[in-house]
């Protein structure tokens, strides 16, 4: 399966989904008003990857500086897919939530995801 790489713009994040390593990284800003333009291919790639991969573990790195509410829903949809496949195919999923160490709001958002999801979830300052 091919990797998926999307370069960042002022209002969309850099996205790198690596099929070989099972490491998926989204970083930067996300406030496109049509989030599906960006996240539809990401969600489709993730679904196909989870259906076909031989990997036993997948890591989702979220290293956002800002995202809007529609993007937060897209992140949740990705996490829900990971939850589903952890049950369905026993692919262990880990979410790493990175936040700038002074950014109390990004930490709080991470905590709320942590409370809401049933996956290994790490809050990592940088």
């Amino acid at each position, binding site marked *: 399966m091919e990797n998926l790489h999307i370069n960042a713009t002022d209002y969309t994040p850099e996205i790198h989904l690596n099929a070989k390593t099972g490491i998926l990284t989204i970083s930067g800003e996300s*406030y496109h008003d049509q989030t599906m333009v960006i996240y539809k291919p990401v969600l489709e790639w993730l679904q196909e990857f989870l259906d076909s991969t031989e990997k036993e573990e997948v890591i989702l790195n979220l290293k956002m500086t800002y995202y809007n509410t*529609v993007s937060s*829903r897209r992140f949740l949809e990705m996490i829900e897919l990971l939850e589903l496949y952890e049950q369905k195919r026993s692919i262990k999923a880990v979410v790493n939530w990175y936040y700038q160490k002074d950014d109390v709001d990004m930490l709080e958002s991470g905590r*709320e995801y942590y409370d*809401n999801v049933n996956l290994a979830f790490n809050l990592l300052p940088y």
Partner: protein
Amino acid sequence: MSMRLTDEELFSMHKFYQFVRANSMSLAFQGIISQDILSLVGTTLRKKPNSEIVSKRLFSIVVEMAQNIYHYSASRAYSEKDKKEIGVGVITIGENKDHYIVNSGNIATAHDAISVAERCEYINGLADEELKKFHKKTLREPQRADKPGANVGLIVMSRQSENKLFYDTTVINDQHTFITLSVRVSKKLFM
């Protein structure tokens, strides 16, 4: 040929100047509020002499307002970039002695205006922990079929301002209402 402005033009610019000065408005936009404009707003806000967290929150409030206008305003204009009609409205960023104030205004259908007002009332009636739970619950609900948003914009605006949502409605005619939303962030936050 006289190149002078008409009295009316002069008067309205003077009025506009007085109004934005009196409300310490640093930014005001009318029309299609594109992502490129939002990205400029972000850059401008980050230069303000307040805490970075407050700047980010103000930016977030502007983005959510802009997106509500983009999707739901009943007054629409053709966007060359999007190749379709998108919503227009106004957004201002100003301040008074105690607060940073982000306002938005747009024409909405009478029906939408009522649902926004009701949602503001509902959110304003919730205590912090209840609002947090409501946010979580709403985010987990399936995407509404005919709506592109996440349905949590107003919740996030209230949570980020740590304040109630102020709003006002002006009925224009049977079908349309002008809705004003005002979000106020205390200058004392993170001081």
